[in-house]
Structures are given as C-alpha cells and as structure tokens.
C-alpha cells in the first residue's frame, strides 16, 4: 500500500487496464491499453493480475515520486526511464524507495511506455473497468489524463516488494520497435467495396503515419485506395484494429478509444498479434500491410499467448523453494525472521 505523486504529467499519462467490455452495444467505447503485450508483461513482472490497471505514457514521460518502497516495472516503447536521474532497465522489476523519483529522459524507440505498480492502481471501476475514456470523461483518475499534483493510490502488493526483485523478461520476448513495420491483416468485412486495383494498392503501398494519430485511431497517408462506388455503408460495428477507408481513400486504423459503430467501409482488420506494433508507431513511421487468413491470425494469437506464458514461467521461477522461521535474540530482544531460499 502506498501512493505515488505526479510531479509532472508528461504529454499524456493515463490509467488504463484491459478495457471496458460489454457496453459496446450501448455505444460505450472499449478504451483500455493500446499495447496489450507490454501491458500484460508489465503486470506479470510485479506480481499483479496481468489485466490490472497501469499507467500508459505517450511519447513524453511523466515525473513520479514514490511515498513508500514498492516494486514497479516499465515496458513498451523506450522513453529512457531513470530513477533519481540514473538510467534504469526496462522489462524487469525494479525496487524503488520512499522519496525516489521516476522520470523519463526522452523517446528512443516506440511511442508508449507502460508503468505497472505492484498492487495495482486503486481507482474506482466505472462499468467494470479502470480505463480512462477521456472523451467520455469516465474511468481512470477522475475521468481524465493525470495532472501535476495528482496522488494515485497503490493497492496492497500480492507479495512483498522485495520478493519481486529480479524478475526479468527473457530477452527473446522483448519486442523491438522498428520505424517501418509490416502489419498483417485479415481482409474485410467490406473488401468487396473496393476495386481490384484498390485492393492491390492497399496491399502493396507504403503508408505513413500522419500527425493525426491518437488512441481513437491512426490516420495514414499514402496512395489513394479506390472504391467501386463509395466509401459509405450503413453503419455497423467496428472491431479493434479495423482499417477504415472513407471516400478520400486514405486508411484509418481504429484503436482503443474508437467509436463502437461507424458508416465507412472497412477494407481489412489488423490482426490481434500485430496490434501492439501499431500501438507503438508514431508520426512519420512507415507501414506495409500483408494479408493473412483468419485461421493464421488466430494461430498467431495462440503464439502470443505462449509468449505470455513463457514470461510468467520465467518470473514464477523466482518463487521460494523453502521457508524457515528463525528466532533471533539481539540485545535481549527477540525477533522472528523468515528466511526464504529462492530457486
């Protein structure tokens, strides 16, 4: 238990968990973290439920002060995290002490970092989720991005912070964040609204992430994708990662804060396993699309889950193999000391 104080909020620092599910039929967007892989790993590293709320930090990191000793982990894009001015590693658990300050020195790769706190972030759930949906002013910390002076309460850690020290993500599971990326997609649901040439353009062209990219969607610029007639449809549902192409022919990838329904054609959908890549893309990055089948996409989800399991296993192996209770007498006072032998 403890709290953290936001000294400086950075560009956009939000409390997000795995999202607000079950309310899309009422028009409530899902929200939640953009990069689900980094999110889950950050929680595993600090002994949390992997869907627990974390801080999602975009491009310019915050400065945070800790009120107690606690374990944290930073994953995702590399914004050069430092504690008390000294660089600290990402993708592993870190022990911080009372009064320590976490800051970020600048963007090196990717776009979004995730900070997990052992014990999770204590904010009230709204419709079953702690995720901030800023446009709807709900969830997270008072329904908004964090500001200087905000105090976030941290829940009780499942294990003592000291027990969590030394948890590391095996290096083979740490993603890189190239500035030119290939996103695999499944076609549809409206692939038949495009000319054969339009589809060819989409699958062969190089697209650039525009400045209009946020949690709701990423607008891309590139060669115009041609429709047979128009880019409008009778409104239907929008899945995470849907590639919407309105009449102007430029694709928009719909992400965490997307509206639940919409009236533009969707040429394809970025596969789940590749969504963390687009979540880490920033303006100017280049994108190529490649077609896969739904079955292949689902096989890749299983592969992603296997990676998560492997990270969990690597972290769990630090569990104690034996515990001894010792009674020590020092200066006439008796102390009980628990000694654990770690694997």
């Amino acid at each position: 238990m403890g709290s953290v104080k936001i000294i400086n909020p950075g560009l956009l620092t939000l409390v997000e968990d795995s999202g607000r599910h079950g309310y899309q039929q009422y028009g409530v967007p899902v929200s939640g973290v953009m990069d689900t892989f980094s999110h889950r790993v950050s929680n595993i590293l600090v002994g949390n439920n992997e869907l627990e709320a974390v801080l999602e930090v975009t491009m310019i990191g915050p400065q945070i002060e800790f009120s107690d000793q606690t374990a944290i982990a930073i994953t995702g894009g590399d914004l050069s995290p430092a504690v008390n001015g000294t660089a600290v590693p990402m993708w592993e658990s870190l022990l911080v002490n009372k009064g320590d300050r976490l800051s970020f020195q600048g963007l090196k790769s990717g776009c979004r970092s995730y900070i997990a706190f052992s014990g999770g972030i204590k904010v009230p759930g709204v419709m079953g989720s702690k995720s901030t949906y800023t446009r709807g002013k709900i969830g997270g910390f008072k329904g908004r991005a964090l500001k200087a002076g905000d105090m976030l309460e941290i829940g009780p850690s499942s294990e003592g912070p000291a027990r969590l020290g030394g948890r590391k993500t095996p290096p083979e599971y740490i993603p890189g964040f190239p500035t030119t990326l290939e996103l695999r997609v499944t076609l549809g649901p409206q692939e038949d609204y495009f000319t054969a040439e339009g589809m060819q353009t989409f699958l062969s062209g190089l697209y650039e992430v525009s400045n209009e990219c946020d949690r709701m969607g990423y607008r891309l610029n590139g060669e115009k994708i041609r429709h047979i007639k128009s880019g409008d449809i009778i409104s239907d549902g929008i899945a995470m990662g849907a590639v919407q192409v309105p009449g102007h022919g430029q694709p928009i990838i719909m992400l965490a804060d997307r509206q639940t329904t919409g009236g533009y054609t969707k040429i394809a959908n970025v596969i789940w396993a590749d969504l963390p890549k687009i979540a880490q893309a920033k303006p100017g990055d280049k994108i190529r699309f490649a077609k896969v089948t739904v079955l292949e996409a689902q096989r890749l989800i299983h592969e992603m889950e296997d990676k998560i399991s492997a990270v969990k296993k690597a972290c769990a192996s630090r569990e104690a193999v034996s515990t001894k209770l010792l009674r020590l007498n020092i200066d006439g006072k008796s102390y009980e000391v628990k000694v654990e032998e770690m694997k």
Partner: protein
Amino acid sequence: MYKRTKYLAAGDRALVMEFGNSISEEINKRIRSMGIAIERSEIEGITETVPTYRSLMIHYDPMTIGYDALLKRLMSLEEQLENIDLPSPSTYEIPTLYGGEFGPDMENVAKHNGLTEEEVIEIHTSRDYLIYMLGFTPGFPYLGGMDERIATPRLETPRTKIDAGSVGIASAQTGVYPIESPGGWQLIGRTPLKLYDPYRENPILLKAGNYIRFTRINREEYDRIRQQVEKGTYEYIIHTGKGGGQ
C-alpha cells in the same frame, strides 16, 4: 433482407452477421432475435454482441472458440431462430418539455413544414419510435419511423454545444442527446431524464430493439422529474410491448 445472411470476419476476434443492406424493422427484428438467441445459447467464448442497423457484430475470444467452430454454432442457431420465443420489446416513455428555451428550433421546424408548434408536438408524440441501435456517443439512440410531416434539414451551422437531454430532428430522423456534445440537429425540446449516467447501476437507459415514446410535460413537471432523477428516486415508465400510435 438477404435470403442468406452474410457471415463476415471482422478481424480475428469479431465476426459480423449481416442480414441485409437497408434499414428496416424486419431486419431489426431478426437482429434482436439473434442477439437474444446468442444470449440464451451461452456459447462459450462470446464476449459481447453489438447490434446495428443491418448487422450484429459478435466479439469472441479465439483462445476459447475458433472462427470455424463459432461459425458452425451461429449458423445452427440461426436455423432455429423461428422457433425461439421472443419477449415483447419494451417502450420507454421519454417525458419532454417542448419549445421555449429548451426547444430553440421549434419555430424553424413548424415554419419549414407549414405547421403550428402545437401540431409539431402532436405529431412528434403520436408514434412509438424503434431504437435501431445505440452509438455515436454512449447511449445515443438511432431512432426510426418519424413522421415525414415534421422532417427538417439539419442546421446549416452546427452548434458547438448541445445540452444532454436535448430532443431534436435531423431530416426524417428524431433523437435525444445523452451527453453534452456538438451537433446540427434542430432542437425542439428537452427531457429531464438521463439517458446515460456512468455511475448508475444501469448506466444506459435504452436498448436496441426496444421503443421510445415521447410524452409532453410542462415546466413544473420537468423540474419535479429532474429533481427525482438527480436523487435517484424517479420511476422510469416502461411499457411492455410496443404501444399504440403506430
């Protein structure tokens, strides 16, 4: 309505059952039936469904059920759709204070259609409106079936701020704004009800496939209902079955 429903993949975690390419009550009924059938079937792995004008989006967890298996289950469910016993839709009463400061475009709507304000209110309250879908903002209902006699084009210059509860007309559509938002609808009144309250047990009042009926109230009633809504003591008036007036 299509003779054969289209099953379309929307990525690797959602699929769309598209029933037609038009907006019709018949299609909406089919979507509502399928939604209820899925709810009752308890197919493991389905996480939520989203009804829209002409389709139902089904979100699922492929770690629990794969695309092919889900497709099979849904197709066999659809085959038995005629046999399911549907509960009657509900009709929600939306008490509305028409005209005046809450309905700044009432005069426009009346003039545009060569009617008196009284006639506009009478026509607007005389029908039950089908809720085709919710979207755009949390709780925003897309309603069907407004009388063409009060149809009015959108404002040329949209307002930057429309208060929650505003009742408006855009072409041949009518609707209610659940939260403060910008918009170009012609505003004819306001309801004291909260269509959306994220902190209420049921955050969204309305559900697709049900109906709305506007009823006329005066200023005193508006203020009284508003107070009750704020205190959480207001008893919403919901009729079972679609009311008269159609």
